[in-house]
């Protein structure tokens, strides 16, 4: 009887275990990177071919090779203008998400607070961001402040909504367990709610990473003489089309870098998600 009992766990473990599950995963991700690189290269080649075959003038649209030339010819102007955008993007990302998480925690623990503030947050969200930008520039001047504020504003809402959902996504039986253990509200938060919400938080952060860059660039269109947003406008007016495309490439690279960073952090802070969801 006892021997049979023991045999079950040891036989079941390798089948569901990490080593068996992860190796093919790693092969898969290498394959996926190769495939996506192939896709991008194919689109670039097609683009170059279309431009050459139809003889599109370079002030209308740039070829991939012209974009590469622009990137190599003007690294300083791109870098000088990328820096403020990086500061605004990360500043807005941090400010917007921290406020969203704090308010979401407040919502979950105080219904009155939620009923007072949630409609307000939704209303602010409905205001078009391009309309708010000039207002914030008037209020906050032309430095970093209004850009960070706009980037924060645009990241705030998705994180708030996801975080409220995440903090409430606790299994009812797990809440009963906490009750039977006479856990305080703080202990329920610390041992159950916070960690339950992390996958939701990281989904929101991935959205926020690209959104906050968008916010910073839009903010720079209004009353700014530096930053990638400013450079986009300047290059457009001067018909420096290759530089315009190069600026977009830099902006895209920034968003990708932030997105990648969030994904790496997610793998570190939410490791159980990879080994396959919640029990039960």
């Amino acid at each position, binding site marked *: 009887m006892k021997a049979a*009992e023991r045999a079950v766990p040891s036989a*079941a473990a390798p089948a569901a275990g990490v080593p068996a599950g992860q190796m093919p995963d790693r092969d898969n991700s290498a394959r996926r990177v190769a495939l996506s690189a192939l896709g991008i290269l194919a689109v670039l080649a097609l683009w170059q071919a279309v431009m050459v075959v139809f003889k599109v003038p370079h002030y209308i649209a740039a070829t991939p090779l012209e974009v590469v030339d622009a990137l190599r010819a003007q690294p300083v102007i791109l870098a000088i203008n990328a820096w403020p955008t990086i500061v605004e993007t990360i500043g807005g990302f941090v400010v917007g998400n921290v406020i969203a998480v704090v308010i979401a925690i407040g919502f979950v623990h105080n219904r009155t607070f939620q009923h007072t503030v949630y409609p307000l947050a939704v209303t602010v969200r409905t205001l078009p961001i391009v309309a708010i930008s000039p207002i914030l520039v008037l209020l906050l001047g032309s430095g970093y402040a209004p850009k960070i504020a706009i980037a924060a504003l645009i990241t705030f809402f998705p994180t708030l909504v996801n975080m409220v959902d995440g903090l409430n996504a606790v299994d009812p039986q*797990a809440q009963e*367990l906490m009750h039977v*253990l*006479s856990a305080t509200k703080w202990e329920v938060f610390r041992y159950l709610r916070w960690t339950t919400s992390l996958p939701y938080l990281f989904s929101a952060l991935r959205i926020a990473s690209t959104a906050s860059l968008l916010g910073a660039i839009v903010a720079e269109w209004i009353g700014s003489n530096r930053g990638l947003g400013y450079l986009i406008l300047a290059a457009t007016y001067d018909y420096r089309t290759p530089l315009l495309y190069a600026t977009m490439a830099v902006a895209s690279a920034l968003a990708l870098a932030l997105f990648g960073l969030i994904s790496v952090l997610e793998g570190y802070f939410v490791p*159980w998600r990879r080994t396959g969801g919640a*029990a039960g």
Partner: protein
Amino acid sequence: MSVMVDAPAIELGDVGMSFVLPDGVLEVLRGITLTVRQGEFVSLLGPSGCGKSTLLRVIADILPPTRGRAAVLGASPAEARRTRALGMVFQQPVLLPWLSAEENVGLPLRIGNWGARHRPAGTPDALLRLVGLEGFNHARPAQLSGGMQQRVAIARALVSDPKVLLMDEPFGALDAITRDRLNEELLRIWTQVRRTVVFVTHSIAEAVYLSMRVVVMSPRPARIRRIVEIDLPYPRQPRMKDTPEFTRFSAELRAALEEAS
């Protein structure tokens, strides 16, 4: 300890439970009077959705009864809960997926800093050994089978040394073979720790095999239809399931259930 040592493990007096719903009142429990002695293994048997789990939640102080009295070891269920006189095992294992098996078992000791202020039944490691999971201390729940997860849940319920163990269809979601094996394990653990167990099930065979007494409940609103003493000796052996006595108890319970429905 404000719970009384020589009081009955559980006393229910005319317990009733109704929920107010938008389209009327749903009566789930009616006039439940029951006494469970300390050290007893009692099963609550009834059709699905009859209110057995609700009754367990009244005892566990998760739901307050709308009428009647409930007492655990002579104290209120709330008092019993605060002093960890109650342990609970749910239908699902309800393990925290980010914690290892050992950390899951140790969770009750961390909450309220209980482990530092009281004497636990054993270390999480010792309890994992008790439920037959030695060597799986660092496994995450997702790496364990359903039966193993439920063993972890049993170890967690026992870690703060409760006098009364409440089990809400703990093996209902498992396949028949795993379920039989865990029934064996549960009886082995029960004879080792000698705690009062209240076990909710809708399996007649499980109820007969495990229990000293089986409380047969009617469909909603649940009332006690009959209490059957299972006069089979412990330790129980799987081959007892083929004896005429076992069959007779099963038939008696089945008859009581059919009369109830």
